[in-house]
């Protein structure tokens, strides 16, 4: 036993040796994207597959090494990196980093190209490259009839590179690069079949919606930079002392690393609460700069709310979730990788990464939790009435992301991250299963026209069943544990002055569980059980090749075994046991806990769920599933041919039309914007710019040019003579200046 532990705690490559190679993890997929994109057409299909898959496989191996290195404790010495913002003894444990030097600098402001891998980003690296590799493998078979294969794999590799940048960045600006990169790759892949205008429009919709969020993200970053500047000027030694730093070290850190690194922000967060003493606290007004007069706490709340808008764009939350269901226009592996497993969880990752700042603002936390709950419930309700298998899965993704946001908002970051991890496994499995179903049934996506596939597609059926049970929350699959960990934390954590939030969100959570169980069971039952629909496109479905089933099996297996993370097996400091994942993420989240304790903004509850909690959640999930089973196996088949009640039809139509949210946006946002654009086009563009500015300048230039043309003789010597004359003039002028 000790031997095994020792094996896992000794990285094959020592951390300090490995750290400079962190950039390779990003570089490999980028290289793959370059090769596939530029030479793909000439390389041929098999070579493109080889290049794309091996690039991701290489990145996976490197990620594994990096992850291993972050857990390295060879000889009892835990791997650590120096914290540029803290005192000498204040090292960051269980993390490796490498700084590739200044990326750009302008005045005091500078951004380094620094990469950081700790337990949080390490596990995400494994998810991105691991699930990414499986999906690449799957795609080689799924895209076998498509001529744009090289474009597809180039984009997919590009996406992975951008996502890795996002996760490994040690500062906000570099993270934003990845953030934009994944947005672009997502846009390219949603509109992959760009000849179909509906699909191209879906890509554009995703892009524009994300733009709104990205704009908020940028403003939030600027606010943070201003806050850091104000903080570094106003703080006194006691502030720095409470954060385990000193003025000299902190200023040095700002000079070396720039103001927006996560470690620097963490130090500021540690110094801000009232309880720590010092000149700066949340209620202190900022003295100088554009933010003069606002308190630190107020600015922090505004910043976090802006980040919420940014994260809502990327992670498909209210009010910006509308792009995700449409994003299903892209190829199914894309939906699995980008719009289920990785990119859409970027918002959750962002908040986990900045957890120490987030806990400073209970208002922002409550907003996040409520937004998450509302989104989750709305998406679950819409999913009831969708018949397109991918649309249902898309809405369920929105719903599950809402659950993660609830967790983040209530301060159970580890559970949110765990749900992110398990969700990546089972949702990718579900999407790939859906893709396999489509592949075997002539691209049929309407679940009403499928059915009875359990005999024809055995592997797909088995894996789909496992992941459906996982997302539903049936014991003992991982989804049950992670979702329950979130809800338990949500129930027992209390935001300062906002006690009602936890009860409200928890109630919503139980409702969502029931809904999830219902619509997921519906999809499963309609697709795989019963008799084959007479409207099916092909009489007999065929099982997909092993390239497609192997990733399914691996993912299904993973969605079972990740439950280990949620089991309370690790000893907690101060007695008792704590879940593995909480223990695992504690090096990352400890500052947030310290800040929460000092600021008293959120009361964190560390108890593990009792049997009763489990039982409640399980019963709720089971009842949802049972209701679906009853309705779709017994009730509806018996009702065929009878008229449907008017009320039921109206409800169904509303849900089917996604509660008319798109139409609402069309009415209150898009129409006015279009109208303003029309006015601008007519008045400003056509009249002012076209007539006065463009034609006017052209007219003046033409007349002047006609006049000047007489001077143009084309004689080079004449020009030289003019030059000589000018030189003479200059010389005479200089001489006169000297003489006088």
């Amino acid at each position: 036993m000790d031997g095994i532990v020792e094996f896992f705690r000794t990285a094959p490559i020592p951390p300090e040796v490995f750290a400079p190679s962190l950039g390779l993890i990003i570089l490999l997929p980028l290289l793959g994207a370059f090769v596939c994109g530029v030479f793909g057409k000439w390389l041929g299909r098999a070579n493109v597959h080889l290049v794309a898959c091996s690039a991701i496989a290489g990145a996976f191996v490197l990620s594994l090494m990096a992850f291993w290195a972050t857990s390295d404790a060879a000889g009892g010495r835990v791997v650590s990196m120096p914290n540029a913002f803290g005192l000498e003894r204040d090292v960051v444990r269980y993390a490796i980093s490498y700084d590739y030097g200044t990326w750009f600098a302008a005045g005091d402001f500078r951004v380094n190209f620094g990469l950081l891998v700790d337990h949080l980003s390490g596990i995400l690296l494994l998810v991105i490259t691991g699930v990414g590799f499986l999906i690449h493998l799957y795609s080689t078979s799924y895209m076998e009839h498509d001529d744009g294969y090289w474009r597809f794999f180039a984009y997919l590799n590009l996406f992975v590179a951008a996502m890795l940048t996002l996760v490994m960045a040690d500062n906000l600006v570099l993270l934003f690069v990845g953030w934009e990169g994944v947005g672009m790759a997502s846009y390219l892949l949603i509109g992959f079949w760009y000849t179909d205008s509906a699909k191209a429009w879906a890509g554009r919709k995703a892009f524009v919606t994300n733009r709104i969020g990205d704009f908020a993200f940028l403003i939030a970053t600027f606010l943070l930079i201003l806050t850091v500047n104000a903080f570094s000027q106003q703080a006194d030694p006691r502030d720095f002392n409470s954060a385990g730093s000193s003025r000299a070290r902190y200023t040095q850190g700002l000079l070396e690393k720039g103001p927006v690194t996560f470690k620097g922000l963490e130090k500021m967060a540690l110094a801000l609460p009232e309880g720590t003493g010092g000149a700066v606290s949340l209620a202190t007004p900022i003295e100088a700069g554009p933010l003069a007069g606002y308190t630190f706490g107020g600015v922090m709340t505004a910043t976090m709310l802006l980040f919420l808008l940014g994260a809502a764009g990327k992670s498909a939350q209210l009010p910006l979730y509308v792009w995700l269901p449409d994003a299903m226009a892209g190829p199914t592996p894309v939906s699995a990788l980008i719009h289920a497993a990785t990119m859409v969880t970027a918002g959750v990752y962002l908040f986990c990464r900045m957890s120490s700042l987030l806990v400073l603002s209970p208002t922002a936390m409550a907003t996040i939790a409520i937004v998450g709950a509302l989104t989750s419930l709305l998406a679950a309700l819409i999913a009831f009435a969708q018949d397109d298998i991918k649309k249902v899965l898309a809405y369920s993704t929105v719903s599950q992301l809402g659950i993660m946001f609830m967790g983040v908002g209530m301060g159970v970051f580890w559970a949110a991250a765990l749900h992110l991890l398990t969700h990546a496994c089972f949702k990718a499995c579900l999407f790939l299963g859906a893709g396999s179903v489509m592949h075997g049934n002539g691209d049929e996506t309407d679940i009403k026209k499928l059915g009875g596939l359990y005999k024809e597609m055995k592997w797909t059926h088995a894996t789909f069943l496992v992941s459906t049970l996982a997302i539903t929350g049936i014991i003992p699959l991982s989804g049950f544990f992670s979702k329950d960990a979130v809800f338990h934390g949500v129930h027992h954590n209390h935001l300062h002055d906002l006690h009602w939030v936890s009860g409200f969100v928890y109630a919503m959570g139980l409702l969502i569980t029931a809904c999830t169980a219902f619509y997921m069971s519906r999809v499963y039952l309609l697709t795989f059980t019963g008799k084959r629909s007479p409207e099916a496109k092909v009489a007999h479905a065929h099982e997909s090749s092993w390239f497609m089933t192997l990733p399914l099996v691996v993912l299904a297996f993973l969605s079972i075994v990740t439950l280990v993370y949620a089991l309370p097996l690790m000893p907690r400091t101060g007695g008792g046991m704590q879940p593995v994942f909480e223990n695992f993420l504690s090096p990352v989240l400890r500052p947030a806990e310290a800040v929460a304790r000092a600021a008293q903004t959120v009361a964190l509850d560390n108890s593990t769920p009792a049997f009763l909690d489990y039982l409640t959640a399980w019963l709720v999930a089971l009842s949802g599933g049972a209701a679906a089973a009853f309705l779709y196996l017994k009730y509806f088949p018996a009702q065929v041919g009878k008229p449907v009640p008017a009320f039921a039809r109206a409800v169904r139509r509303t849900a089917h039309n996604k509660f008319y949210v798109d139409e609402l946006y069309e009415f209150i946002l898009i129409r006015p914007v279009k109208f303003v654009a029309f006015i601008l086009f007519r008045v400003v563009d056509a009249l002012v710019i076209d007539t006065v500015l463009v034609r006017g300048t052209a007219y003046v230039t033409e007349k002047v040019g006609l006049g000047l043309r007489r001077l143009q003789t084309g004689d080079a010597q004449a020009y030289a003579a003019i030059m000589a004359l000018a030189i003479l003039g200059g010389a005479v002028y200089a001489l006169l200046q000297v003489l006088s």
Partner: protein
Amino acid sequence: MTLVSAGLVITARSPINSAMALVSTFFFLAGIYVLLWAHTVAVMQVLVYAGAIMVLFLFVIMLLNLGDAPHRGKSSVTRLLGGASALGLLAVLSVTLGRTNPMPANLGPQAQATFGTMAAIGQSIFTTWLLPFEAVSLLLLVAMVGAVVVAKSRI
């Protein structure tokens, strides 16, 4: 002598005469360079200018088979203007230079031994001025390729 032969360059009717006068100008200039203790540059002057460049000129003149240019009496305004400004510049410069009277620097014996020698210049070029040196070599290469491309009738 330098001025006389330079004057011949610009007044000679035939390009060949001009070229010959230019060669003699270069030789005279090389002598003046020696007076300025610039032996290396003087040698290069003879090699590159009087040798390589002038051969190139003569070669082109032969190739194009140019005889005496028929003198065209007409002189344009710009030409007069140009000539006048050149002479004016000369006047201004002479006035300026006439008012100054710098003397050569008094070099010590140590410096006298090294000033203007191949070794000193080479040292300077290959340490301080290495990048410009490489740029010039690239320029020559580009010029060579460019000359071939431009002069060739069909590529």
